């Protein structure tokens, strides 16, 4: 559904679902994490028109920022019935990010839900630079 292919792999977790996401820099990593999560959750045709939503998220550190960032996108889907079709992070630091989200209203005729993610957990959350790339491991509650 998204315009850029995120770099991620799914992790085996007995009860839930985990993923490792990689990115060239923090912006790439956080954008990739959002796209990966949406890709796992929903499938649909590219929309003809989208709306833009501005989002600011604060966190205690990078791991907390990641949980809260993905949590906001998940809330938009589950609470507001809005599908985030793409994200663009305009600025990011260790404790804050500002982003523009492209969203469409959920439409059961256009969107197929692939799996339900109840929440983004803090369990074994990790966001770190490994060699020359950034990597995040996130476990979702299903």
């Amino acid at each position: 559904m998204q315009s850029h292919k995120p770099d991620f792999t799914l992790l085996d977790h007995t009860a839930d679902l985990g993923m490792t996401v990689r990115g060239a820099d923090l912006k790439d990593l956080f954008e990739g994490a959002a796209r990966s999560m949406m890709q796992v959750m929903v499938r649909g045709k590219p929309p003809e028109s989208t709306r833009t939503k501005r989002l600011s998220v604060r966190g205690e550190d990078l791991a907390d920022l990641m949980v809260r960032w993905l949590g906001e996108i998940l809330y938009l889907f589950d609470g507001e019935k809005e599908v985030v079709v793409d994200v663009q992070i305009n600025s990011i630091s260790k404790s804050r990010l500002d982003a523009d989200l492209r969203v469409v209203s959920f439409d059961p005729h256009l969107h197929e839900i692939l799996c339900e993610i109840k929440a983004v957990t803090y369990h074994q959350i990790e966001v770190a630079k490994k060699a020359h790339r950034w990597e995040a491991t996130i476990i979702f509650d299903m």
Partner: protein
Amino acid sequence: MEIKLEKIDEYQWLIPKTGPMRVPGLIFSNSSLMKAVQEDQSLTQVANVATLPGIVGHSLAMPDIHWGYGFPIGGVAAFDLDEGIVSPGGVGYDINCGCRLITTLLHAHEIRPQIKGLVSALFKNIPSGVGSTGGVRLTKREEAKVAVEGAAWAVKKGFGSAQDLERTEDNGAMEGADPSVLSERAIKRGRDQLGTLGSGNHFVEVQVVDQIYDPDKARAYDLFEGQVTLLIHSGSRGFGHQICDDFLKEMSRSTQEGKYPFDLPDRQLACAPVKSDQGRRYFAAMACAANYAWANRQVIMHLAHETLISLFSISPRELGMKLLYDVCHNITKKEQYTVEGNQVMLCVHRKGATRALPPGHPLLPEIYRGVGQPVLIPGDMGTYSYVLAGAEKAMVLSFGSSCHGAGRLLSRTQATKKAKGRAIHRELEDKGIYVQSRGKRTLKEEMPEAYKDVSQVVEVVHGAGLALKVARLRPMGVIKG
């Protein structure tokens, strides 16, 4: 982390207290189930829970234990009210996820020819699937009433009867619920999800009583061989998820800021002292979600009742639908136990575990005081579910707790891989089980092989004396989200 295990007897394994653990860990299992447990990280999670402040006795795990997030699924832990903590992760996102078993006067042979039609009708009438809505839409004011009154709210609105309440844990309403502590998001998410099943492992199952183990207790529970029963498994939906999420974030921040004097081995174990303001507010919010879940299962039961009446063109009296019992799987409660000879109130967390009160317990309704609390153990959709009765040893060994289901064996991705190229619904049909599900992947992820053998799990609980077998139920039809 290497976890040392000591076998105590046929059904109990001890994790000795080492390093930062404040108490030992204790796992109820058998040799065969233990092999799978040692392959994932659930034992480390039992040890992690043992490090939390104020934990009393043991960090416990039931035989259906598997790797969760923070606490293991199948974990039970009790905390001192003065020194101990309360942890949203120790309850889980789906607060008061639980199940209720309903008996009828129908015989399996009477409905067998119409089972496909019955499954379709239930599927049509009970909203299911991700973010499912359309059950009962609530105003903000009514939602607050649901959060305080629980199942009684539903009964007042005509969903079921007053006798259902005494057959529900805590009479379907936990004390101390306070909607004023809820976030706007939680309220918004609860507005249109009452009376909906949800997705994942949630289901409504049409079953037949296939075997009776204890005729006296079965009689007390109104169970007979060949009888049609219904089992509903659902929780507090997005309302509960949001409450857990809100408090985890808040408590995680407090922990990071050093507000509380303890270190946590996993951020998902974020918690607050029971007597702190945060702890008290979490209790008040969690009780709202628990009550919402009881109202939810009450409404779903009513939808099932109406479906059966209309499909079979019979009177309510002929159908004879009766709630046997409703139990929670994900909850924390203040309960009284004897510790080192003293009666103490403890904050007991059950995450994927069922309360199992023995005969004579004062919290039991009159009708079950002589036999013990019905303990409902759903299996996977291809095998059996069990009804047990709470037993005395649960009060001594497991803070009045038992297992809650089969417990996952395969991850969802492993299950999907294993199911590739197979028509799971057809395989089940060959066994006489008709399934309808909303999500395309649900059936694969929830296939019978993804779960442990529920019979073995139940044998451990029975053998350890936590709860005793009463009857076995075989699925005939299932609807899934």
